[in-house]
């Protein structure tokens, strides 16, 4: 039985051959420490870091490639913003569709009395409206918006939301969590007037795991997060204040960076096509499952505001049981539960039982989706 992988929102699989070759080439031929030595191999490694930084900057229309900070993943990029920006007494506004990558650090700081937090509730389909601006207070320092939900695939109008926030108070920073949308939906950090975009490399950019980053639009008054060796200013015991070194201490994940560049190169000229194909699969799933009794679908209800992620729940069969049967009887791999986003599930009315999430990708084909729909039909009987 052929494997049907429908868990691309967790991590995309498989990866393009060019990504595998780029990582292998790095590990085989030039995996020295970038920026730490002056020998040819180290310089070649540094060149790859620089080229990738330029590629990421171009992808997000960053002011300059030095405003691209490499991290292990989007979670670390989000934590970087919180540590760099927030101070005691600050107020933060988040949407109710946020992932725990956002909620856990903020809840921790809230519980410590360091910040206060307001939740801007999304509607039953997960849409956040511009009224998020109504939550802004004099002490508000930051608003966090999830671009595309990892639970139901709903896409927020980030330009409109960020524009509204800046209209009310231009000093309130806006962080976009673009973990799911990067590689599918073009993001112009300057045009949408946000201050930070956090992204990961291993989802819709088709890079390896362990590489992500933060793109900064406004770098004023930011404190360093992880401090240590940078290769620069080695005579000083204090962290450099220039970018990207201020936020990049320790040896970078060079094989990951090489794979990230290959992934971006692979998707950047065909984002519209990839996104369009994903939406065709979502349409097939919606049409295939809508008539199944006792089955509920959770998505945006509009292909205009959607990525290739959709959740389903059965009134009588737990999602974990459906997921296990899909695995055991049909070799269909999906994710079940709360997807590390309990707040989003509360918003959608699926907390605490969660949902079965299907997420398509670049290598999903029509027959994969048909196998899934047929399997759900059988399991639901």
């Amino acid at each position, binding site marked *: 039985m052929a494997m049907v992988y429908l868990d691309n929102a967790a991590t995309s699989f498989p990866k393009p051959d060019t990504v595998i070759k780029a990582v292998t080439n790095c590990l085989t031929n030039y995996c020295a420490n*970038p*920026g*730490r*030595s*002056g*020998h040819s191999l180290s*310089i070649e490694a*540094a*060149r790859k*870091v*620089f080229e990738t*930084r330029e590629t990421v900057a171009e992808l997000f229309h960053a002011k*300059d*490639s*030095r405003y691209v900070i490499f991290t292990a993943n989007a979670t670390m990029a989000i934590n970087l913003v919180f540590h760099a920006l927030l101070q005691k007494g600050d107020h933060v506004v988040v949407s109710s569709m946020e992932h725990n990558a956002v909620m856990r650090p903020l809840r921790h700081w809230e519980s410590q009395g360091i910040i206060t937090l307001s939740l801007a509730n999304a509607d039953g389909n997960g849409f956040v409206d511009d009224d998020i601006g109504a939550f802004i207070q004099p002490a508000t320092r930051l608003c966090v918006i999830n671009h595309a939900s990892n639970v139901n695939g709903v896409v927020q109008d980030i330009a409109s939301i960020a524009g509204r926030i800046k209209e009310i108070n231009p000093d309130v920073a806006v962080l976009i969590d673009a973990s799911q949308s990067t590689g599918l939906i073009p993001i112009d950090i300057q045009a949408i007037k946000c201050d930070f975009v956090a992204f990961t490399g291993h989802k819709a950019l088709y890079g390896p795991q362990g590489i992500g980053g933060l793109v900064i639009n406004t770098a004023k008054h930011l404190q360093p997060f992880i401090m240590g*060796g*940078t*290769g*620069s*200013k*080695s*005579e000083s015991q204090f962290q*450099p204040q*220039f970018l*990207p*070194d201020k936020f990049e201490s320790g040896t970078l994940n060079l094989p990951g960076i090489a794979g990230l560049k290959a992934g971006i190169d692979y998707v950047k000229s065909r984002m519209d096509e990839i996104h369009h194909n994903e939406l065709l699969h979502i349409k097939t799933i919606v049409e295939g499952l809508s008539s199944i009794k006792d089955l509920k679908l959770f998505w945006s209800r509009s292909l205009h505001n959607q990525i290739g992620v959709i959740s389903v729940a059965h009134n009588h069969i737990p999602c974990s049981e459906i997921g296990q049967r899909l695995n055991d009887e049909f070799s269909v791999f999906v994710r079940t539960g709360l997807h590390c986003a309990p707040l989003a599930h509360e918003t959608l009315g699926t907390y605490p039982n969660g949902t079965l999430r299907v997420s398509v990708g670049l290598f999903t084909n029509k027959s994969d989706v048909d196998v899934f729909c047929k399997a759900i039909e059988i399991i639901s009987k």
Partner: protein
Amino acid sequence: MKNMDYCYLLLPSVHDAMKAEKLLLQSGCAIQVIATPREISHNCGVVIKFSCAEINTVLLSCKELSAEQKIFKKNSNNVYYEIIPE
């Protein structure tokens, strides 16, 4: 690059050095990225070595770098000294 006077472009970070390398290669300069001489700086990074005859091209090409730039020259006693371009 033999029998020439060499200059050395020092930038704050390896990122800046890589950017400078890209710009200088685009402008046709003959350059070499080398480990930073200890006499110039104690950082662990790199500098860009070039013929002093090309200093004006280097300065022009690196104009768009928004980073501090220092240029050093080595005298006949192998002592590095910073030069202030005209």
